């Protein structure tokens, strides 16, 4: 008889790396925004709207938000796996979280390109 040891679903290392890459993307974006806001002499709707009017800024904002949503998915999934034992409830929560995050992606596109 062969004793095979199953070692999980093999997404561990990939998600560990994704969590860190998305974290760095978000950190760089956040620091850039804070630095930009700090050097503005005054702040109002005009400054804010102008910042987001360019396609480059919109693209990097979308990259930030996509990183955020992927990062959030891994984090929430890990929390749910730790604390929610019944498979049925866990599945329902996972599905709801994924649906919410996909809706946030669509909403983000509408916010950034619909203004």
């Amino acid at each position, binding site marked *: 008889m062969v004793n095979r040891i199953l070692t999980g679903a093999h997404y561990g290392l990939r998600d560990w790396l994704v969590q860190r890459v998305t974290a760095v993307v978000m950190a760089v974006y956040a620091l850039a925004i804070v630095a930009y806001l700090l050097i503005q002499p005054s702040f109002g709707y005009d400054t*804010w709207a102008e910042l987001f009017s360019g396609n480059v800024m919109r693209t990097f904002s979308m990259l930030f938000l996509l990183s955020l949503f992927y990062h959030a998915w891994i984090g929430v999934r890990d929390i749910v796996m730790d604390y929610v034992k019944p498979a049925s409830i866990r599945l329902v929560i996972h599905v709801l979280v994924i649906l919410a995050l996909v809706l*946030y992606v669509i909403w983000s596109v509408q916010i950034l390109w619909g*203004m």
Partner: protein
Amino acid sequence: MNKKRPKHLALHKIKFPLPSYVSILHRVSGAVLFLALPLLLLVLDQSLRSVETYTNLAECISHPLLKLVLLGLMWGFLHHFCAGLRYLAIDLHLLPTLAAARSSSVWVLAVSLTLTVVMGVKLW
């Protein structure tokens, strides 16, 4: 050796070291930020849509209760940010000793709380 031994955990004597608090707060702040995502996206949406929605939003945020919610989320972000940087540093083997791990967790708490206070002063 297979005898079932009774475990005696003197819970009132067991204390978390500081990095444990930083760790659990990283998780708590992450969960809070996730739950606040619809609110934060709504704020982004309203702030960019038009001058009217922008001023309307600024008026809403001037309410003390909403300011407090915002400040709470700000702390959540700052703690998650600082603790996250600490984990990245640990991954890069920049904090190899127990002493470094402990002192860096003091820094995480101190920096995030100080910046939260600064933001609070700015908000009020």
